[in-house]
C-alpha cells in the first residue's frame, strides 16, 4: 500500500464565498460583572503602560538634559553654585569599589554555601537552620544589616578596616565596612540562583560521575559547577544589581564624604579604609532630602544608575537566554519565598 495510492484525488476546495474565518471571541454576551472585570484589566494594563512610559521618558529627559561628559571625569566640589560645579567621578569610583568588594566576597561564599546546601547538607537540622539564616538575610531590611555592621566594625580589633579617631574610638565607616555588609545583601540571590540551578541538574549526571570513580568534591568542581555557569553568573549579576541599588548601607557605613578620602598612606589599602560616596548616596545627597540641593546633578546621576541597571539586565538576559529559570529574570524565586522557617511544623 504505497502513499500515492492512499491519497486518491482530494475534493476541490469550497467556493471562496462560503468560507468563513472566525474572529477572536467578543465579550458582548458576557454578564455585566464579567465585562467590568475585563475592562478593569484593560484599564489597568493601559494605565500601567502609561505610567511606565512616563517614568522612562521623564527620567530620560531630565537625566540627559543635565548630563554632560565633563560630569564623568570631574570630582564633586562643594560650592555655592552647585549646579555648575563638580561632577561625579568619585561617586562612580565608589560604586565600582563597593560593588567589587561586595561581589568578590559574596560570590565564592554564596556558591560555597549553595553547594553545601545542595550536595552535602548534613546534619539535616543544621542545613535547615542555614537555609533559614539565608532567608533571614533576604528578608531583613538593609538598615538593620547596616547598623549591625556599624556595631561590629566599631570594635577596636577591627580598627584596621577603617579609621581610628583621635580619642581611640574606631570610626567604623569605610569602604571595607560597607563592602562587607553589601556582600550580605547579595548573598541570598547568589545562593538562590546556584541552588536552583543545581537542583535542575538531573541526578544521573552525578551518578555517571561517581560511577567513573570521581569523588563528590571533584564532581562538583569539574562537572556540576561548569554546567551551571550561566545561572550562577546571572545570580551574581542580580546580586550586583542589588548592591548597586542600595543606599541605606552606604549612608550608614560609608562615611558620607562627597569625595573619596583615603586613610593613611598605603595606596590601595588606604583607599579602602577611607570614606567616600557612591552614585546612590550622591543622588540622595543632591536631592532636597540631602544637603546638596542640586536636583540637576541628582537627575544626571540617577540616569546613569538607570543605564547601569539596564546594562545589567541585558547581561542577565544574554547569560541565560531562553534557559531562564524564572521567566522574568528578577531573581525572586517562589521556592525561596515563604519557605522560611521550615522547622516550624
Amino acid at each position, binding site marked *: 500500500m504505497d502513499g500515492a495510492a492512499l491519497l486518491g484525488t482530494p475534493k476541490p476546495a469550497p467556493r471562496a464565498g462560503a468560507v468563513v474565518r472566525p474572529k477572536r471571541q467578543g*465579550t458582548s*454576551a*458576557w454578564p455585566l460583572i*464579567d465585562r467590568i472585570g*475585563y475592562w*478593569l484589566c484593560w484599564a489597568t*494594563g493601559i*494605565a*500601567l503602560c502609561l505610567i*511606565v512610559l512616563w*517614568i522612562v521618558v521623564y*527620567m530620560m529627559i531630565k537625566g540627559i538634559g543635565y548630563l554632560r561628559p565633563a560630569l564623568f571625569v570631574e570630582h564633586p566640589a562643594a560650592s555655592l553654585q552647585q549646579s555648575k560645579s563638580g561632577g561625579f567621578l568619585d561617586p562612580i569610583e565608589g560604586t565600582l569599589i563597593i560593588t567589587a568588594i561586595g561581589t568578590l566576597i559574596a560570590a565564592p561564599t554564596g556558591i*560555597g554555601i549553595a*553547594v*553545601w546546601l545542595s550536595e*552535602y547538607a548534613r546534619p539535616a537540622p*543544621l*542545613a535547615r537552620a*542555614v537555609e533559614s539564616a*539565608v532567608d*533571614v*538575610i533576604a*528578608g*531583613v531590611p538593609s*538598615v*538593620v544589616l547596616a*547598623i*549591625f555592621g556599624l*556595631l561590629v566594625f566599631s570594635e577596636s580589633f577591627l580598627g584596621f578596616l577603617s579609621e581610628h579617631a583621635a580619642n581611640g574610638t574606631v570610626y567604623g565607616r569605610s569602604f571595607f565596612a560597607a563592602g562587607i555588609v553589601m556582600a550580605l545583601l547579595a548573598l541570598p540571590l547568589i545562593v538562590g540562583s546556584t541552588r536552583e540551578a543545581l537542583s535542575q541538574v538531573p541526578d544521573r549526571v552525578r551518578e555517571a560521575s561517581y560511577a567513573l*570513580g*570521581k*569523588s563528590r*568534591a*571533584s564532581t562538583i568542581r569539574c562537572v556540576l559547577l561548569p554546567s551551571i555557569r550561566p545561572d550562577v553568573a546571572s545570580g551574581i549579576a542580580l546580586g550586583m544589581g542589588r548592591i548597586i*541599588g*542600595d*543606599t*541605606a548601607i552606604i*549612608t550608614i557605613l560609608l562615611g558620607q564624604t562627597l569625595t573619596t578620602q583615603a586613610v593613611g598612606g598605603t595606596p590601595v589599602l588606604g583607599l579602602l579604609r577611607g570614606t567616600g560616596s557612591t552614585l*546612590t548616596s550622591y*543622588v*540622595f545627597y543632591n*536631592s532636597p*532630602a540631602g544637603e546638596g540641593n542640586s536636583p540637576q546633578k*541628582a537627575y544626571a546621576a*540617577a540616569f546613569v*544608575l*538607570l543605564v547601569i*541597571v539596564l546594562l545589567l*539586565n541585558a547581561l542577565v538576559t544574554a547569560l541565560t537566554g531562553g534557559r531562564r529559570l*524564572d*521567566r*522574568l*529574570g*528578577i531573581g*525572586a524565586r*517562589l521556592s525561596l*519565598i*515563604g519557605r522560611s522557617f521550615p522547622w*516550624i511544623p
Partner: protein
Amino acid sequence: MRRRTGHTEDKRAERTLGALAVALLLLIGGMIVTVFVNAWPSFSSNGLSWFGPGGDVDTQLRAMQESTPLPGHSIEYFRAWPLIWGTLLTTVLAVVLALFVSTLAAVFLTEFAPQPVRRILEPVIRLLAGVPSVVYGLIGILALAPFINHHWISTSRKQSVAYVVQLNGADLTTATVILAVMITPIMVALIAGALASVPLPWREGSAALGVNRWRTIVRVSLRTARPAIVAATVLATARALGEAIMLAMVAGGRGFAANPLDGLTFLFEPVRPLAATIVQEQEGLSIAPLAHTIYAIAAVLLVSAALLSFAGWAAKQPLKRYGIRA
C-alpha cells in the same frame, strides 16, 4: 589509592563548606542576638508602652541626643506609636494598592494583551523591578510631591493644621503611591509568571464546559496562581517594610501620627516609618540611649520580617491539598 585521596578530598571539602555555612549561621545568629541585647535597655525602661502613644517622637529623640531628659521621664523615654502607625499605614496601603493593580495588570499581560505590547512590556517591567529605590525617591520628591502640593493641598488646608505640622507634599499619599509603584513590577512579574504556567488542559477543560474566559481566569487561573500571589505579597511587604531611604525622602520626615479623624487632610500629613527613622537618626548611634532606641526599632523590624515569612508559609499550606504547588 586514588579513591582514598578522593575520599579525604571529599571530607575536606565538606568540612570547609560546612564551616562556611556555619560561619554564616553564627553571623546571623550573632546579629539577631546583638540587636536584641542592645535593644533591651530601651524596652525594659519603657515596658510595653514602648509601642504606645505618648508625646512627640521627635522631641523624645532630641532629648536623648542632647542627654537632657524630658521633665518627668527618664532619658530612655520613648513612645514609638507614631512611627509604628506610619509604618503600618504606608506598608498596608501600598501593598493593598499594589496587589490590586498587579493582579489586574498580570492578568492583562498574560491573557488580553496583544503580542507586541507583551513583548515590550516584559523587559520594561524587568527594568523597573531593578531600579534603585533612590531613583523612585527622587521622582517622588521632585515630581510627585510638588504636584500634590500645588494641586491637591489648598492653602486653607495647610493653615488648618499649621499649628501642628507643615504640609508640603511630602506625606502619606506620596509615600504610599511611590512605594506602590516600586513594588508593583516585582509582583506583576511573579504573578504573570504563575498565570502563564497554568496548564493548558485546565483552561481548555474550563472553556469546553461553557465557562467564559473571564470566569475561567478567576476560577481556575487565579486559583492556581494563588501561591504565587501570596509569595509576591510577602515579598512586596518585606520590601515595603524595609524601605528606608526612599521613604526618608518622600514621607515627610516628621514623626507624626497621621490622624484619620482629620478627614481628607489625613492623606496629606507627613509620616515617618520605622526604617526611615533609623536612617535619619543614624548620627546618634554613639549616644547610648539613642542607640538603644534605634536598636529597639531594628528589633521590631526583625520580628516583623520573621512574622511575615511565617505568615507567607502558613498562607500557602491549605493550597497544597488540591495539588497546587509553588
